């Protein structure tokens, strides 16, 4: 996956993450993409160095109770390539403003 050749789906996923939708099923819900597209894309993006990931502590999930979440975060190259890709896919520029939902390991 060379620079600037980000697919539309990948761009949408990066956009979702940068907008604060930080784990798999949240991304699936907000983007409307199927899981069979989102998860492979997440792995590809992570392998390419655009994302990093981290599991939340099990006790947090158990307390809710809900499945444990794996949180994704944009890396610096990820933010750069997203900015470039958004310029190409002009529609994405008009997405709703950032929904500030940073993970707070102590609570979420």
């Amino acid at each position, binding site marked *: 996956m060379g620079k600037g050749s980000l697919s539309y789906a990948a761009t949408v996923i990066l956009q979702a993450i940068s907008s604060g939708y930080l784990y*798999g*099923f949240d991304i*699936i819900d907000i983007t409307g993409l*199927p*899981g*069979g*597209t989102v*998860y*492979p894309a997440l*792995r*590809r993006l992570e392998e390419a160095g655009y994302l990093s990931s981290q*599991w939340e502590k099990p006790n947090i999930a158990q307390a809710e109770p*809900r*499945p*444990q*979440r*794996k949180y994704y975060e944009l890396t610096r190259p990820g933010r750069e390539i997203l900015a470039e890709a958004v310029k190409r896919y002009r529609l994405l520029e008009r997405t709703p403003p950032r929904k500030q939902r940073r993970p707070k390991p102590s609570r979420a």
Partner: protein
Amino acid sequence: MFLIIQWRRLLSKPHLHLIALLGIIVPLRLRADWRQEWEAELQHREQLLAGWDRLDFRNKLDLMRRSTSAFWDALWIQRQRWEDEMFQDLRYGSRMLLKRPGFTLTVIFILSLGVGASTAIFSAVNPILFESLPYPEARQMMMMWDHGPDGARQEVTFGTYREISERSRSFESLTVMRPWQPTLTGQAEPERLEGQRVSASYFDVLRVMPTLGRIFDPSDDRPNGAKVAILSDKLWQRRFGADSGIIGRQISLDDDNYTVVGVMPNTFENVLAPSGDVWTLLQYDSSLPTFESREWGHHLRMIGRLRSGIGRDEVSRDIDAIARTQTSEFPRPAWSALKNGLIVNSLQDEITRDIKPALLAIFFAVLLVLAIACVNVTNLLLARGAQRRGEFAIRNALGAGRLRVVRQLVTESLLLTFLGGALGMLVAEFGVRALIALSPPGLLRASAIRVDAAAFAFAIVVTMLIGIVVALIPALHAYRADLVGSLKLTSRQSVGGQQLIRQALVVAEVALALVLLVSAGLLMISLQRLFAIPAGFNASNLLTLRVQTSRRFDTQATQRFFVQSLNAVRQVPGVTAVELTSQLPLSGDVDQYGVHFENDNQKVGYSSFRYAVSPGYLEMMEIPLRRGRSLDSHDVAAAPLAAVISESLAKHKFGDQDPIGQRVRLGPSDGPWHTIVGVVGDVKQTSLAASDLHAFYTTPDQWRFSDNTMSLVIRAAGNTASLMPAIREAIWSVNKDQPIVQVAMMDDLLAASEAERRFALILFETFGLAALALAGAGIYGVISYSVTERTREIGVRLALGAERRNVLSLIMRQGLKLTLSGIGLGLLLAWAVTRLLTNLLYGVSATDPLIFGGVAFVLIVVALLACYWPARRATRIDPLIALRQE
């Protein structure tokens, strides 16, 4: 019960089980992570909807669909791993193979020989036995035979052909043919050609069209019709410089002018006369004037092409019905009355009938060799796997999964197999050349023998099968083995199971080798017994020369030519004796006539070989005189007709009575009476195995026809063959237009007459020796390995006072036990299998106890030799060193 619980659990959350299942293909190191994420996703969906049990069918289905979409994710990760690790395996594998060049080369060598030999044999067998004939819809082609007096196949008469072609509705076209050997004369030296006289429909039945010109015109196929010829591409290239203006030109065949009407394509393969170069029309009389004419002689081969939709059973019924109901329109003579109907069989079966048993036997033999090679390689790999236990254990300890280690092994095995297979293709190429060089002359479809796509496919399939066998057994072993255990273990033995498999493999190897060796032994004895049979004459240092005179010669001219040639050759310095005969023993000549004795009411005569020989022939050939006198120079045309008969004919008719003075009619029943003047020893005419020995001899002067082809038999002081140029000059000094059609030493004819058996024998001997060597190597490998494994045990024995002699016998006994088991199994197998060889055997039973015993003995000797070195090594073990090893 357990299963039901499992099933319920599966039904309760099928989507999660699906994820668990898909997770298998995800690399272990990523699996937990991957599964957790997907399960979280699905649980999340489920939570959003409701509990699984309360979901409706549509939502359940949706969850299932979501879980299956994980498959692509799993596969994506998987793909990466496969590539990475496969290259890693390959790199590592090649490195391991290079590190042990001896082992690697041995395995590749064994495999390439196995693949190569079997591919070569397959490429020879395939066109003859398995491929259909090289004609369109070849399945529809049938061959028909009459029944001879003894029930054997007999060629049909033209009358039968006429009747079948008029009355049968099963055939699209039908044709008859007979051999023709015309002499081509012209600017170049005279040459005798091989060819066929055929009815006009010949090329219609084969469905082959000429590249130049046309096929025969039915209106020419009548007595005194136009003399036309069709040439093969080979002849056209060789004699006429591929001149496209050949059509319409006249060529001289047997001193008659023939118009060339066509040239066949170079792809045309004529299975009915493989070396045929020229065709002309039969030109028999369709009105069948009298029963005495050639139209009623049994000398034609008949083939037909069935209408589409007609099968062999239908045509057989049709022909039977025609044979049973004779009509007034088609009268039949007694000898062609079709009382037993006709034999109808597919052309493919008919033309492969003689060679099929030999080829199948050879094919099975080579498959046996291949099996032995596989077993041997498997054994080598197992031994190697055992040596590498430590390495595997370390890799396992460092985190390599068990499957990973197994895959490494499989990769190495496959690498070896494919290298062996690739080299095997080369071996096959050479093997095919050797086969063609070795093959008996006139081997059917020899031109079709090559390493072609089918043979290539065969080699690939064989290689892959070997790969699976050779890779799987050691791999399964490694998989089952206790890797952690072997890290602790050094020389103390815990690998009994492995030894068991290796021993079983050696037993199988010995058994297979025994089958091959027994087969080779039986063939060898057959050939020996055959060549031990006296041919009935002295064949050594005898030059034979077949000369064909011009058809233009009348009887006197022909006889004059032969007498003059005889005298001219007698003048050649060095020649001590030269005589003439109308047919030469063991040369392929078959000239038989019926013999009727006086006061004998039998309608059908004794079928006997006819020899018109110059006086002195019997003495010169050293055919012993049993009674009466030999033929001599007084037996000229004007003298009373004399005949000498063979011992076998005399015994058959007269028993112990004296036949001298009895009268016989030789050939046609309206012929003159000859008086029997002598009885001579039997001579093998068709082959050394032949049992038809009835024969009679007359002088050429006293034979009612004149032979235009005769053979000179020449003896000389010293090397007869070196006199050939002078002899040729002498004959041409009489008349330079008469072609010498065949020159051969009698010894060579003798050898050629058994070429097929010899061919089979050479291959079986080669395969048998290969099998013996492989079996020996297998035994050596197992015993040698076992000595290594038992070093400590042997050391203890020696330390406790065991004699070296005891250790030697301990190891030897172990090897012998394996060998004897193999031999026992092999004897049973051979006993079941060798009867397939019956057709190739002569004078020996397929279960000859001497051969079976002899081969078993040879195998035991080889096995003892193979065990001796490892056993001796065992006796030299130093107990102190052995014990300190732990």
